[in-house]
């Protein structure tokens, strides 16, 4: 029986981070690929596959509740430039674990001061290990 992967622990710079449920997503940094045809002749073609290495960036995105502590974390991660490490750990026994090194927040994260406001975090990283 397959189980949905929705119970993931986020660890950033060796510290666990509590995040808003159902807000976590990531890209492994496998990059984008394209295919085109090369003509052999006689109505035949062959596929030419290429990978765009410039798109091989990982990404980790999540939101966390707007608290004073989380506001401090946001600033620390941003000011840390690309010296952050993000780890995603699955439930015990799942064997799911990904490490994203040289993680940086490229944008300027927004904090919402609403009653149920969140801070939106998006890291740009090396491809997942």
């Amino acid at each position, binding site marked *: 029986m397959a189980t949905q992967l929705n119970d993931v622990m986020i*660890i950033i*710079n*060796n*510290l*666990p981070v509590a995040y808003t449920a159902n807000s976590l997503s990531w890209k492994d940094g496998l990059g984008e690929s394209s295919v085109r045809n090369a003509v052999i002749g006689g109505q035949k073609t062959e596929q030419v596959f290429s990978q765009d290495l410039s798109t091989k960036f990982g990404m980790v995105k999540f939101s966390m509740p707007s608290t004073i502590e989380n506001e401090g974390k946001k600033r620390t991660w941003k000011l840390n430039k*690309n*010296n*952050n*490490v993000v*780890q995603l750990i699955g439930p015990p026994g799942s064997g799911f674990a990904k*490490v994203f*090194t*040289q*993680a940086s927040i490229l944008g300027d994260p927004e904090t919402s001061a609403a009653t149920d406001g969140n801070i939106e975090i998006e890291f740009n990283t090396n491809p997942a*290990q």
Partner: protein
Amino acid sequence: MDPVRYHLKNSLKYAVKGDHLSAEFVEMRPPTYRQIDKVAPLKQALMSAILDVRDNKTDDDGAKKGNEEKIDGATYILLLYQGKGDIARIMSNARNLILSGVFLVDGETSITQPILDDISVDDFEGLLGEYIVNFLAPSLMGGR
């Protein structure tokens, strides 16, 4: 008291400066008053264990020999296991001490719960044993 290094026997990875590296050693620093609530129960447990084991010793020559030999970390851990104290509580106190900032991976990064979760039991007991040898036992025995 100077910091002491403990070289890890098993692999341990941690995050530092944007990288995920394998740790080589843990630097242990002497406790300050900030760690008193973690150190005091450990010293008490150690003293109780020593007295429990000494009460069970019938061989006087063995006891004299024990007083002369330097006790290593592994022996202190054995003493704790042999004592009548609650070993689970002792190890929980040890965990709190390790998380209190006086244990630094590769001399730089404080051990956090996620790092501690990956430490092997051998290394955990090794760290505790060496901390007792270098900082707790001397303090208990009057600074010897």
